[in-house]
């Protein structure tokens, strides 16, 4: 069943691309390239083929009244310019300076982040300590806390990360440059339902003098996924 469907789809999409490009020999070239194209790659350098297929699908969906072009632009603008890892960083910095907020965040993250005006996911925040290191993955697809971190990087969606994180989290962390002692407990959170996870990283030592805003600037996306620690600012650096 899947084979016949696949044939249908390949045929349909190739035809759509072909229709959009009629006499251009580059179309045939792009299709030939696709057939030779079985090497592993995480993303590709935009061949014209998917570009044309997407264009054809978008025209069709607009023509049939299935999508509002203004809403498409709003979606892109939301994740390109409004929602990204700075949201998560703001939450982390608040938790570092406000003990009561931190408690609320670890108990009921969805409500706690709403205090900052953030929402969109049923959220759980897990805290890294000297004894426990948390790491987030989605083995079945690529679930990720979009509302806190924006869209995931390609590596988070890669087969390598999705497959290995649950069976060899320490090996994965080592690839990211994080070496943990044998006595540290590693907790991997597989996002298999609608809950989304955010790691509350450890506050680095020597940051007592920093403001909440300066602390937020130290917090990286990778630290909130659990594949990095928050780095100590360089000695002498002033925030």
């Amino acid at each position, binding site marked *: 069943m899947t084979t016949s469907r696949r044939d249908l789809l390949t045929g349909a999409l190739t035809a759509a691309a072909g229709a*959009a490009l009629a006499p251009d020999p580059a179309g045939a070239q792009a299709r030939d390239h696709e057939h030779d194209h079985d*090497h592993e790659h995480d993303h590709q350098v935009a061949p014209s083929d998917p570009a044309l297929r997407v264009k054809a699908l978008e025209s069709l969906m607009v*023509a049939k009244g299935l999508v509002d072009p203004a809403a498409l632009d709003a*979606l892109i603008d939301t994740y390109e310019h409004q929602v990204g890892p700075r949201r998560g960083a703001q939450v982390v910095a608040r938790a570092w300076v406000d003990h009561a907020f931190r408690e609320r965040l670890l108990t009921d993250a969805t409500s706690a982040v709403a205090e900052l005006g953030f929402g969109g996911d049923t959220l759980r925040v897990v805290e890294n300590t000297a004894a426990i290191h948390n790491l987030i993955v989605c083995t079945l697809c690529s679930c990720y806390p979009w509302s806190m971190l924006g869209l995931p990087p390609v590596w988070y969606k890669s087969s390598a990360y999705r497959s290995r994180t649950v069976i060899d989290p*320490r090996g994965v962390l080592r690839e990211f440059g994080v070496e943990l002692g044998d006595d540290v407990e590693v907790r991997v959170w597989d996002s298999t339902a609608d809950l989304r996870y955010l790691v509350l990283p450890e506050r680095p030592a020597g940051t007592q003098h920093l403001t909440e805003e300066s602390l937020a600037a130290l917090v990286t996306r990778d630290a909130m996924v659990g594949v990095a620690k928050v780095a100590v600012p360089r000695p002498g650096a002033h925030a």
Partner: protein
Amino acid sequence: MNGVHDMGGMQDMGPIRREHDEPLFHAEWERRIFALFNAVDVEWPYRRQQIELIPPADYLRMSYYEKWLTALAQILIGTGMATTAEIESGTASGATSPGHHVLTVAEVATWNVPDSSPTPKATARFHAGQRVRARNINPTGHTRLPRYVRGKIGTIAHDADVEPLQDSDAQGLGPKQQHVYSVRFTARELWGERASPHDAVYADLWEGYLESA
């Protein structure tokens, strides 16, 4: 479905490749398919299932957004929003497809603000601290019970949420709205004696996926 998408625990997928200063989108078409795939009027489990139905060799070869493109064409055909002929020709032959909600700008603006709608109610069969076994079931449709936990014993870490079951074949899995539990499986239970004695994997599992142990 025991598909290649259910890849937790596989070991032969190579190193994790990171890109320095990675852009949010690598091409304009990725930006457009991102928006189209999010805007189309279907539920996420259906979207995920269409991605899972991509044949395995293609699934592994395709980039994330190529999978979305392939799945979107199938969604349009599968829901009757567009015909195969329309997708083949790239032009609409019929009129507007009725009965589908068109996402608005105002709705997009609500996606990332707090939502006050209450959690649905359901009776909880398990409680924190209880030992459970993930059921050994192998449904051929869409499921969110990964293979690597099936038949394994874990502990309910907490009662995490109440959510609608997402399985396409929900027969024998209980009511639609169910408690979802965060279940802690020790690394040794999942991967054997060579795994770290300290480490654990937590999976969010619907009540119908679990039995007392």
